[in-house]
């Protein structure tokens, strides 16, 4: 570290000496040290601002990620760990295992990946559609006490997620209060099919207020004169909705939709606090359960299985999934392309 810092300063020094030489050649007075330092508050202000953040990122984000990516090509796990120097490079062995080589691993991976995608689709669109519906209901013209309704829903999303999710887990327990009220014996969280539906429904409970909140903001931003002119042109309520409200919402919300999708692929909280990926399945590889997403499986692999090599392979695959999703977002949102337009 110190030697790197020294090297950087040395380079900078040489560079500045060279620049001074140039200015003297041009017949001007060279910059003094104080002036030089002042450039860090003006022409070179970006260096002042960005050095610390980038340094932190280097040491605590990039470096660990590089290590982790390397792990994917070794056999680092609880049997081969750093203490006895027993791990070595295995090339693409781990990737091959996950995709086709090892029947159990590739079967589990396929199943978990499929469920991750199914989950992401359902979780995203259920929240999106119902959130918009709720926002429209609350913002309907004749509805009174809009603030009250909004606040009721917002309160629930203000409670930390792990609290509400743990409460939900208790409510939906086999012997929980929901079963007691309904006089039923439904295995909400302990049987694969039910558990998968339950996590999606609970996710709606968590996510709809957020969507409602942002859609409400958008609805309030729609210029009223749009509707007025539409009314003058004889548009009825349905036409106003499909021609003004809906296009407006979907235009603004599309980037949001895709980033929610990526967020749901990475949705650790809902799954882990509700089911921890359980119920387990006998034909699954170590630690994975039938409601496990790739990320929760990754967590279990790191924390309880200490199977770092497999965890890092999964991490890389999640990265590829998210990168694809984000790339689509990036290309679709015009805002990023014409960032200069506002100024």
């Amino acid at each position: 570290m110190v030697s790197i810092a020294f090297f950087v300063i040395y380079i900078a020094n040489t560079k500045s000496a060279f620049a001074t030489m140039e200015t003297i050649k041009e017949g001007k007075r060279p910059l003094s040290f104080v002036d030089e330092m002042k450039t860090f508050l003006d022409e070179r202000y970006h260096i002042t601002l960005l050095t610390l953040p980038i340094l932190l990122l280097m040491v605590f984000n990039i470096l660990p990620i590089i290590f982790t990516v390397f792990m994917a090509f070794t056999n680092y796990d609880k049997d081969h760990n750093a203490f006895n120097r027993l791990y070595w490079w295995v090339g693409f062995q781990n990737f091959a295992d996950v995709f086709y080589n090892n029947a159990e691993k590739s079967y589990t991976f396929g199943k978990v990946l499929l469920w991750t995608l199914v989950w992401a689709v359902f979780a995203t669109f259920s929240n999106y559609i119902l959130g918009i519906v709720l926002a429209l209901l609350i913002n309907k013209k004749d509805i009174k006490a809009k603030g009250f309704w909004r606040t009721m829903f917002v309160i629930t999303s203000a409670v930390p997620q792990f609290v509400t999710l743990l409460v939900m887990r208790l409510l939906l327990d086999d012997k929980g209060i929901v079963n007691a009220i309904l006089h039923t014996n439904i295995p909400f969280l302990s049987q694969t099919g039910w558990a998968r539906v339950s996590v999606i429904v609970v996710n709606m409970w968590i996510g709809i207020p957020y969507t409602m909140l942002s859609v409400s903001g958008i609805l309030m931003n729609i210029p009223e004169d749009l509707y007025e002119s539409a009314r003058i042109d004889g548009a009825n309520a349905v036409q106003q909705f499909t021609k003004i409200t809906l296009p407006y919402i979907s235009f603004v919300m599309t980037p949001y939709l895709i980033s929610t999708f990526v967020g749901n692929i990475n949705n650790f909280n809902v799954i882990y606090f509700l089911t921890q990926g359980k119920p387990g399945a006998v034909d699954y590889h170590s630690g994975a359960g039938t409601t496990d997403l790739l990320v929760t499986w990754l967590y279990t692999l790191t924390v309880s299985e200490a199977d770092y090599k497999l965890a890092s392979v999964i991490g890389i695959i999640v990265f590829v999934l998210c990168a694809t999703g984000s790339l689509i977002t990036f290309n679709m949102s015009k805002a990023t392309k014409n960032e200069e337009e506002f100024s």
Partner: protein
Amino acid sequence: MTTKQTNIGSMQTGYGQRRKIANIVVYIVLAIMVVIWIFPILWLVFQSFNGKEGVSLNTFFPEVWTFDNYIKLFRQEGPMDASQPISDTNPLIVLPIERMTFPYGRWLLNTFIVAVFSCLISTLIILMVSYALSRLRFKSRKMLMNFGLILGMFPGFMSMAAIYNIMEIIGLGKQLFSLVIVYSSGAGLGYQIAKGFFDTIPRSLDEAAKIDGATRNQIFWIIILPLSKPIIVYTALTTFLGPWADYVFVSYFMKGDDEKFTVAMGLYEMLLPETMNEWFTVFCAGAVLIAVPITVLFTIMQRFYVAGVTGGAVKG
């Protein structure tokens, strides 16, 4: 609603009536939804006052009302001190699960410390990076942004094990400060929303200041920041709430060291199968205690939150 109906006149009573019915339906739907949304929260609050130990299944309202759960939360620091000498004199003795204690007051303090420091550092970093990327033009700007975008796509805790090893190497293993670093080191990647906001501040302001001889440093502090109150509040709020709700890193970093837990981790431990029956109502009390200040904070800041979310969403 009713006044409008009279205004419309007798010609359109059919239409007015239909609208009235539609509104009633909307009210009913909203009411049902509010009940569904509020029910778990109310249940949690009521159970925190429940005098009967264990998870009550059949009653929504507690049979015995008590305040003991809240008291028990803070009293639990005692037994921990009593058990300390055991592990001090003989470090080989590992406390068995039954000896595990729940020093809630300590957790609350830990969480608060971690949250405040992460919030300060993260907010500063985010604002600095956003300003640099929004206003300053330098060679590697586009490259940095693309790089940040790619970096942000790695799952957050993928490299958890490696980060922990690094923390151990620099002597921060099992230290609260390591959590602060983890939560704020990645802040530089979360610049998008604040940058989107800065982009909307007219550039003519900068130029006017520059003509008057202001440096970029002065422009940042004197012109841009005072105009960005909503986004500063939004950033501070989100970075403050992050550590309150995070379970992943605490659970890995502080495993087995219950003095170093934050509330999220601690409350989760209360509901493990072996402790759940005895600690369930105390868990409820603990959950209510941390939920109340956050809910109040959140409701007050709602305005800024909406501004942040939609402002950021429009700009992508």
